């Protein structure tokens, strides 16, 4: 999906004449040096926390408030490592202490219940009202609970965890895997596109297989996928054949992978090919932008948020920037890495806009590492730039781990996966 600047944006430019009119694309209050520079950030994940930190780092005269209900944030990256027994929940936990103490971000543990776009205020569940000059919305994903009959939030919290927002969901799925008998069957049901972390379900299958191979070797994993192909497919399939022969079966949409119904009482799912029973069912529902993005009217018909690709400012509500999974960011995937990259681009743009200057052209990047076993890592990288078609991937760059990579390279990628995690965590919360 490639998002372009909207016709309305272009018309604004045409009407006002090009020179000096770029600010009509970046909200209304930026024709002169801003005297008030208050930014509120909704959401303390990879996007929101990076944006908050970099706003303060790039311009300490900006006052930044971060609203995030969770005191401890568990990352989706590496949560599959927890499922595979390679990491603990503590290893993927982050707090806001450094953002508060070192970067002087005002962190409020609360939920935004209302965004008033005309008054430029947000209201918190606790009753507090915060004014802003610019707002950054980074709420991640929400689930389409009704996309498949029989699934619901309460089913997710009791019998069939999605484990696609790390935390209690990760713990529940982990416990189910630990309690499962040897010879049991695990179903993983990924959603259709677009969804958060495209290689995530397949890394998950790999690391669960690693755990089962060691502790419950008679067990089996079936991936019921509505799609016909998936991220890093050839690399995953080669790795599965080498590491876990016969343990992981992937069924595409055309081969009975499309789930039409789930039944928590009988622990089964229904596909076009029949009923499949299992001991553990990891059902990952279809996704849409986070709730506050809908409540604030920032979404379009796709269920995601259209943005100006220079500043990630909403093309619907000027002065409000949407970053991360909720945004429509051209060719970029929905990943923690991408969200962080977008958070920094939005922060740098806001700094410039407060100075009455045109933001610099964005440069965006993504790398998704996946682990198949402790010493077996693969990656996909992408470098993105702005063109008249929006944010596009640079064809000459990026790409996958070579299919013929030797064991040393695969081990190095596994080490870099952890090295990346440590540094992006520091770059975001540390």
């Amino acid at each position: 999906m490639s998002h372009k600047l909207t016709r309305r944006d272009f018309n604004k430019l045409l009407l006002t004449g090009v020179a000096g009119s770029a600010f009509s694309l970046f909200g209304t209050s930026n024709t002169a040096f801003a005297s008030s520079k208050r930014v509120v950030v909704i959401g303390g994940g990879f996007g929101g926390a990076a944006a908050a930190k970099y706003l303060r780092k790039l311009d300490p005269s900006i006052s930044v408030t971060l609203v995030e209900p969770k005191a401890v944030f568990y990352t989706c990256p590496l949560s599959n490592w927890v499922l595979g027994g390679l990491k603990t929940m503590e290893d993927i936990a982050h707090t806001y202490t450094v953002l508060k103490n070192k970067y002087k971000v005002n962190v409020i543990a609360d939920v935004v219940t209302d965004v008033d776009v005309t008054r430029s205020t947000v209201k918190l569940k606790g009753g507090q009202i915060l004014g802003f000059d610019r707002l950054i919305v980074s709420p991640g994903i929400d689930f389409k609970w009704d996309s498949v009959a029989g699934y619901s939030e309460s089913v997710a919290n009791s019998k069939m965890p999605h484990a696609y927002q790390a935390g209690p969901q990760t713990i529940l799925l982990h416990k189910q895997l630990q309690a499962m008998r040897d010879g049991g069957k695990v179903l993983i049901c990924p959603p259709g596109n677009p969804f958060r972390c495209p290689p995530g379900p397949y890394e998950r299958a790999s690391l669960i297989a690693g755990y089962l191979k060691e502790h419950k070797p008679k067990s089996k994993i079936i991936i019921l996928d509505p799609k016909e192909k998936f991220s890093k497919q050839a690399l995953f399939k080669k790795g599965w054949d080498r590491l876990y022969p016969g343990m992981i079966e992937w069924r595409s949409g055309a081969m009975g992978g499309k789930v039409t119904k789930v039944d928590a009482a009988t622990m089964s799912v229904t596909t076009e090919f029949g009923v499949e029973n299992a001991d553990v069912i990891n059902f990952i529902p279809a996704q849409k932008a986070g709730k506050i993005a809908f409540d604030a009217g920032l979404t379009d018909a796709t269920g995601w948020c259209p943005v100006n690709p220079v500043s990630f400012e909403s093309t619907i509500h000027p002065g409000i920037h949407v970053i991360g999974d909720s945004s429509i960011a051209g060719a970029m995937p929905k990943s923690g890495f991408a969200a962080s990259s977008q958070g920094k681009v939005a922060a740098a743009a806001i700094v410039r806009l407060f100075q009455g200057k045109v933001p610099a052209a964005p440069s965006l990047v993504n790398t998704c590492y996946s682990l198949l076993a402790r010493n077996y890592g693969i990656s996909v990288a992408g470098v993105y730039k702005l063109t008249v078609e929006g944010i596009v991937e640079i064809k000459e760059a990026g790409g996958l781990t070579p299919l013929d990579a030797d064991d040393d390279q695969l081990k190095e990628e596994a080490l870099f996966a952890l090295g990346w995690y440590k540094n992006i965590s520091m770059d975001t919360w540390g």
Partner: protein
Amino acid sequence: MAGKPGIRLTAFALLLMVFAAGSSAQGGVGSGVSTQAKKGEARRVESSPRGQILALSCTSCHGTDGKSVGIIPSISGRSADYLETALKAFKSGARYSTVMSRHAKGYSDSELRLIAEYFGTVSHNNK
């Protein structure tokens, strides 16, 4: 919609504007790095907005200001010339890497220079 000539032209004008806006520190087009000296302060080097935007991509893997805490090499403390040479070697494939060449190929030589200058400047200012 983007296929309409008028709209494409305007989008192109916007592109020119944002690329021009970020090309230097003080608004002029130059090397990408300029110096500012305030009274009573050590000379602090300012990097260009475009260099900054490009370089912010690097810190997700190499750490804030290029200071790595894990196995990935630090960028911090290296000179601009060292970094430029390394980045160009990754881009050409002359230097082996797992992932760096896939990234370096996404930038022009002048963009690699801006990135190198940015981190060279950060290292200078943190001395």
